[in-house]
């Protein structure tokens, strides 16, 4: 395993610990006597310290050491939890998070750590320890230890050098130091490279490896004799040493009853590559099935069938491997909600439901930001101030719920609040004023309302914050969700609250789709949105107020012509697909339905450029390209 891999492991593990720390801080804030939370904090910070130390991330190790001491004092009852202390702890965790992100660059030292620790020490009674002074010193002279990792593959003893912060012509000093080492043995690697070092005009930290019989003391003395050296670290022990990290196995660190399975960590890129290959395989299978269909040889048919089944199994396994529970992203929201609520002077009870629902990793990464947006909007515009709530007879504390639930092939992510709801009249007036809706329209249902506030022009209009409802960035949220092949639904009740639901395919890369032909072109309709298909008979297709409609059983719904949608000149229009999203339905008249197929979704630029009717493209079994219709935009 190379250093980069350790670094990646460190990062992933640390993020888990950070999530744990945030969770524990939140429960500590709610209950200052929460012994369990303090123990968790202490342990998580301790784990981080150990890992940072093993990686040689000095600043990070020292910073976590400080936090550990403070948590120890909380645990022993020496330090009393106050709101100010909690704020400072939260601030420290933010700094820690930044440090983890930048651990490889400078030992994890980030500027934010210094004021945060100062504040903590002040609140804790100003007991600056000798370790704290060591930390301050490290922060002043943070050594980028990345250098040490890049000489990992060479033979010899690892030597790390940091020059004095006031070194003159440090490049020359570095050159001299390396020459001094050369006089004692063979230098096998230097990082940064000697050329780069020699050009340096600011004091440097560098690492080298040397094969030598000289002992550590001799090496150190030689390097110091080059002048202006602040720190030399010669790895002890014979020859090459590597940084090591204890990788905790999931079993060890799990709390009782959760996550008991053993796990292997896989880089996301590797998983993506695997998914791409499976996607190609699925396309090839489609072609194989088509090409061999007419051969009429039972043995060929059998092999093709077996292959097809194996590809399906493989695909399912890969897709399952990509699934991660939503808590991996949801877990950071309580903290964000807390901060936003405090900032906006709201009292919020935040409830998270369906944490265990699984979603494709890449989708989950993508929805984090939109969900943050919706949560913020709900706190800012949806929930009333405590005083207002009391005045209208509601509980003082607002309720904000984030839930994940599975619905057939979709996963629904819903943000709902019990706030004041969106003021329809106000949105309608604004929409009239801006010319977004015809003045004759006087009734707005939820979908029309949503279409209106999700219009880019609407949300960027002035006075947005004055709107008693959403509007801020809803267009961005919708655009993102559409790119992912999903849709957004809005429900709002005056005085009762608002909910926004993101409907997402549970896997991103491969979806089942119905293929429809218009003229010579094929289009894919994701099955998530297909309700049923019917034949286009004279009974079914009628006209109402000059517009075509489909009469299906007792229901009447608008009928769109695929050839109009995709601007084909002619078409036969023999079959109809009923598409639905939420409670809205629309019928689509197509020339022919040519089958169902698993398609590999490839993003297309048109989606980003705002071409509203397509959400992506795919390649069909016969090798022909097909565009994927965005059902949401048809409704």
């Amino acid at each position, binding site marked *: 395993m190379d250093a980069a891999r350790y670094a990646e492991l460190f990062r992933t593990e640390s993020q888990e610990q950070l999530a744990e720390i945030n969770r524990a801080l939140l429960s500590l804030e709610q209950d200052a006597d929460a012994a369990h939370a303090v123990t968790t904090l202490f342990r998580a910070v301790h784990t981080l310290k150990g890992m940072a130390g093993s990686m040689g991330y000095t600043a990070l190790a020292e910073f976590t050491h400080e936090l550990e001491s403070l948590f120890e004092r909380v645990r022993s009852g020496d330090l009393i939890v106050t709101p100010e202390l909690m704020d400072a702890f939260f601030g420290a965790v933010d700094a820690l998070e930044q440090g983890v992100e930048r651990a490889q660059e400078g030992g994890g030292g980030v500027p934010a750590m210094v004021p945060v620790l100062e504040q903590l020490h002040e609140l804790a009674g100003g007991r600056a320890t000798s370790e704290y002074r060591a930390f301050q010193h490290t922060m002043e002279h943070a050594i980028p230890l990345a250098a040490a990792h890049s000489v990992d593959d060479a033979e010899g003893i690892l030597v790390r050098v940091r020059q004095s912060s006031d070194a*003159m*012509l440090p*490049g*020359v000093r570095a*050159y*001299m130091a390396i*020459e001094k080492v050369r006089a004692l043995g063979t230098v096998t690697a230097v990082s940064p490279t000697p050329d780069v070092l*020699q*050009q340096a*005009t600011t004091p440097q930290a560098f690492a080298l490896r040397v094969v030598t019989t000289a002992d550590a003391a001799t090496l150190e003395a030689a390097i110091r*004799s080059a*002048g202006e050296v602040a720190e030399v670290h010669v790895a002890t022990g014979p020859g090459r040493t590597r940084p090591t990290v204890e990788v905790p196995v999931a079993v060890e660190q799990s709390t009782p009853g959760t996550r008991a399975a053993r796990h292997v960590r896989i880089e996301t890129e590797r998983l993506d590559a695997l998914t791409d290959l499976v996607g190609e395989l699925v396309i090839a299978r489609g072609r194989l099935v088509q090409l061999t269909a007419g051969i009429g040889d039972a043995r060929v048919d059998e092999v093709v069938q077996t292959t097809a089944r194996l590809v399906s199994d493989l695909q399912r396994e890969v897709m399952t491997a990509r699934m991660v529970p939503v808590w991996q992203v949801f877990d950071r929201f309580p903290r964000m909600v807390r901060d936003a609520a405090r900032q906006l002077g709201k009292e919020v009870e935040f409830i998270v439901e369906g944490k265990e629902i699984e979603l494709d990793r890449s989708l989950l990464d993508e929805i984090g930001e939109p969900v943050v947006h919706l949560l913020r909007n709900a706190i800012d515009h949806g929930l009333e101030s405590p005083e207002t709530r009391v005045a209208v007879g509601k509980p003082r504390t607002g309720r904000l719920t984030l839930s994940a639930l599975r619905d057939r092939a979709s996963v629904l992510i819903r943000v709902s609040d019990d706030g004041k709801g969106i003021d329809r009249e106000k949105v309608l007036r604004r929409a009239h004023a801006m010319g977004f809706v015809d003045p004759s329209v006087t009734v707005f249902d939820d979908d029309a309302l949503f279409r209106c506030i999700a219009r880019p022009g609407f949300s960027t209009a002035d006075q947005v914050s004055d709107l008693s409802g959403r509007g801020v960035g809803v267009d961005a949220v919708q655009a993102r969700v559409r790119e992912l092949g999903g849709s957004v639904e809005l429900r709002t009740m005056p005085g009762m609250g608002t909910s926004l639901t993101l409907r997402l395919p549970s896997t991103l890369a491969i979806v089942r789709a119905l293929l429809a032909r218009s003229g010579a072109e094929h289009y894919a309709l994701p099955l998530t949105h297909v309700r049923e298909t019917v034949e286009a008979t004279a009974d079914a297709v009628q006209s109402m107020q000059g517009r075509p409609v489909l009469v299906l059983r007792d229901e009447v719904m608008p009928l769109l012509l695929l050839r109009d949608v995709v601007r084909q000149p002619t078409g036969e229009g023999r079959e109809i697909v009923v598409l639905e999203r939420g409670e809205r339905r629309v019928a689509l008249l197509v020339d022919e339905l040519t089958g169902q197929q698993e398609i590999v979704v490839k993003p297309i630029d048109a989606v980003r450029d705002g071409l509203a009717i397509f959400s992506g493209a795919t390649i069909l079994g016969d090798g022909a390209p097909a565009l994927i219709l965005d059902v949401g935009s048809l409704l």
Partner: protein
Amino acid sequence: MASTVLICDDAIFMRTMVGDILQQAGYEVVGEAETGAQAVEKYKQLRPDLVTMDIVMPDMGGIDAVREIVKFDPAARVLMCSAMGQQALVVEAIQAGAKDFVVKPFQPSRVLEAVQRVLG
């Protein structure tokens, strides 16, 4: 017995200044040179424990002078006096056999540190 020093610089001001710093610290300035050629000649004659050598001097620069001196006495201890921004020249001087360097404007403490390293 105090260590002996030969100071080489084309500017009187610099020679005086370096001389003062060293004398105040108890070193004995046994000679001064204004050019590289003079420095080589005086080194052979005086055999000082230490030479301070300006890099840019007329009639043989400091680097060539270092080469000549080291050729004559491989154990010679030469301290280069450089201006800021002369990295490449300093490296060349070190390669020629100089032991250390100080950067102008001189700070007495730094000069003495370097002298001690060289003589140490």
